[in-house]
């Protein structure tokens, strides 16, 4: 039997060290576990400071004892490599484990065990935990704002339809992949625009447009499966026929008489709100800021001095000011710049303001991509006799945009996170609605639940977006 040297554990007495160390670590974790989950203090007989630090000391010694290099045990080696490389690391690891064990019970009890979700009034919330009843009751408001309850199906239907139309790219066959860019860049935004402005907003204009939208959507979907030989005729004939059929044969007579589709109730934009408004604002800003940013970035690299300095001025101006002052400008200063009888809707002003603001950031991101391309690409394209636009559309932009996918995704993420700021002009999306609900005298004192709920929602949305952008980046990565 070799001599045991506790200051320098070695492989010769592996089992002795291992058993002692494991017992010590397990004991320390057990003490903390009992203390935090069952509120029992095993070591309360010790003086105050010592009983506080004892688990830490025990675990520390234990981890020191099991720190044996090349022990041959796979599990032990991986522990030593990952959390127990030296004394300092062992100490921090223990600290983290203890903090997690300590903070689990209060969190669990607040979120689940002592929380209330049953019932439909404040009175059921008697526990010390969260009151999810509050979220349940206000859920509609957090999602749709002040949008009339009876009309909320319009928002749901539009979002479902748009989500469905957005996934078309995954189903398109190889043959029609080349039209996808056109579809996503031009057709889809237009459809979305019509949906939101004539369906969610409602009003009399809805009527004629709706047939046009339905006809266009159906014909585009079928269009993917039509041989390209007949495509031209198809896109001229089918939408018009569909439109006429829809208007005069299928729907017109019955529905008008039944009074069902006569006109959707007009809902002013001030009543829009909640998470759906977050989506609407970020969606529109996303569509608008990308092309504006693209043109600004091209303008900044242009050879024409006037265009160049104009672009630089635009970019630097919007990047230099905080969004909140831009929104202030759009709400108090911009109306001064318009003729007296001209009025632009609040929501439209906000969307224009945020789009211009984010466009400057998008422009800088895209400029980074343009600058990263080697000069040879430009020269090669020019030597093939391509003009400015042809060169950019066919050669430069496809490569540059691929490079800047992460940057653009980050900008879009920032955009989604910036939408709550529209409270400045009195539009209440989800964070604004939370603040409104918090001040309701019936429901005072539940601010925490509301903010936690919104944080979780935003976290899910933003985290999913950032993961998706990471996937895109990996997918489009081309080796150079």
């Amino acid at each position: 039997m070799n001599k045991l040297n506790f200051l320098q554990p070695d492989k010769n007495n592996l089992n002795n060290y291992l058993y002692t160390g494991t017992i010590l670590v397990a004991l320390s974790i057990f003490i903390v576990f009992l203390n935090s989950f069952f509120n029992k203090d095993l070591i309360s007989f010790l003086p105050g400071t010592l009983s506080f630090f004892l688990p830490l000391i025990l675990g520390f010694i234990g981890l020191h004892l099991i720190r044996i290099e090349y022990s041959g045990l796979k599990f032990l080696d991986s522990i030593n490599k990952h959390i127990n490389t030296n004394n300092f690391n062992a100490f921090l690891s223990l600290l983290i484990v203890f903090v997690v064990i300590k903070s689990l019970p209060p969190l669990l009890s607040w979120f689940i065990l002592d929380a209330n979700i049953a019932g439909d009034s404040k009175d059921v919330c008697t526990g010390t935990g969260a009151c999810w009843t509050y979220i349940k009751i206000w859920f509609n408001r957090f999602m749709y704002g002040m949008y009339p309850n009876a009309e909320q199906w319009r928002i749901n239907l539009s979002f479902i339809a748009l989500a469905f139309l957005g996934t078309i790219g995954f189903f398109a066959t190889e043959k029609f992949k080349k039209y996808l860019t056109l579809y996503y860049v031009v057709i889809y935004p237009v459809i979305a625009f019509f949906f939101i402005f004539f369906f969610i907003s409602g009003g009399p204009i809805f009527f004629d447009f709706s047939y046009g939208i339905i006809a266009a959507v159906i014909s585009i979907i079928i269009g993917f499966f039509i041989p390209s030989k007949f495509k031209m005729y198809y896109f001229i004939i089918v939408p018009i026929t569909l439109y006429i059929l829809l208007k005069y044969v299928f729907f017109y007579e019955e529905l008008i008489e039944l009074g069902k589709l006569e006109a959707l109730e007009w809902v002013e934009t001030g009543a829009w709100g909640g998470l759906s408004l977050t989506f609407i604002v970020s969606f529109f800003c996303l569509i608008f800021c990308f092309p504006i940013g693209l043109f600004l970035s091209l303008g900044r690299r242009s050879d024409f001095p006037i265009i160049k300095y104009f672009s630089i001025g635009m970019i630097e101006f919007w990047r230099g000011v905080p969004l909140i002052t831009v929104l202030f400008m759009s709400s108090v200063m911009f109306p001064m710049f318009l003729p007296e009888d001209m009025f632009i809707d609040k929501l439209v002003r906000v969307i224009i303001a945020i789009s211009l603001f984010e466009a400057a950031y998008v422009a800088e991101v895209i400029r980074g991509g343009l600058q990263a391309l080697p000069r040879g690409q430009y020269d090669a394209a020019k030597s093939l006799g391509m003009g400015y636009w042809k060169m950019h559309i066919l050669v430069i932009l496809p490569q540059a945009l691929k490079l800047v996918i992460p940057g653009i995704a980050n900008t879009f993420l920032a955009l989604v996170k910036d939408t709550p700021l529209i409270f400045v002009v009195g539009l209440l999306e989800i964070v604004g609605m939370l603040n409104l609900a918090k001040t309701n005298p019936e429901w005072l004192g539940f601010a925490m639940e509301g903010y936690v709920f919104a944080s979780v929602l935003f976290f899910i949305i933003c985290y999913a977006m950032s993961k998706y952008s990471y996937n895109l980046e990996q997918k489009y990565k081309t080796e150079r």
Partner: protein
Amino acid sequence: MNIKKILPQLLTLLVVILIFGFFSYNAQVNMENRGISFGYGFLSQESSFDVQFSLIEFDGSHSYFRAYLVGLLNTILVSVIGIIFATIIGVVVGIARLSNNYLINKTAAVYVEFFRNIPLLLQIFFWYFAALRALPLPQDTEPMFGVFFLTIKGFFVPAIIWNNLDIFIYSIIAAIISISFVRIYARKKQENEGIQTPVLSISIGLLLILPILSFLFGGVDASVEVPVIKQLSQSGFTFEGGIKLPPELISLALALSLYTATFIAECVRAGVQGVSKGQKEAAASIGLTPNQVLKLVVMPQALRIIIPPTTNQYLNLTKNSSLAAAIAYPDLVLVFAGTALMQTGRAIEIVSITMLTYLSLSISISIFMNWYNKKIAIKEK
């Protein structure tokens, strides 16, 4: 010059001029209708409103220009506090992200992902309306270390009352100047004779000795004023003396620094990872100790990558501090673009001044960054 080159430029110019002309014409008409004339003369008028928290003396009898200064100083105050804490947290978390300890690494990653993906405004609201509202009332507060009081009404800390503060500041400035001379001297000596001077210990010594001398001989004197609880009414208590940090400032600084720290952490991580492995191996192979490798080889190169995006984050933090308006912290936007604008109705002037302030701040920082980048860029021969 051919027409193809001039035409697009002329068209752009024309469109821009037309838009601006349209706007300014309408603005003139609108202002005439409302009976106000464009001008910045209102800045010297009496403001007649009060501000809750200001670094300089301010009340209703002061001018709008002073209101602007109050807002600007408050913005700078919260930005500086935020920048200091964001840097500390960011650097620690960034280094933790690089650790080969699985637990530390994952904890830092969870922190970064969590705080980065939640809107800043939501975080500010969370701290202000939910977390800080759970603090005790002044009369129930347990003091921390006997002198700090964290209450629902704010954070009360002891104030230091100085006599002859200016002499103390002069002594520190003198210490800094002499340290820079010592550094120049040390570098020259090392270049010429190869002898290293213990710069660090000399600097610390100077920084300690000169202020101590100012206490002993300069007539500088400091005393601490501890906040004391005081009853206002039956159930109303407050603290007197000391410095009061209002809850708005605390929640704003907390949210700003926790949020920005995630970005700084990523900058730090990217910077250290950006130094190629070969550099470290080369440094180790010529016999530098691990500490020397870090100090002389890795850090100078990593800082070159870290500093530019970090400065950008500082700028973002400063711009984000304008969210203060949401929780009524009297910053530039709330005091000037909010209250002053409502009182005077001079939308164009006030919004333009506010924007120009932020604009000049960010442009001067970006000019400085360009200069700095050029200075530190690796000069390849």
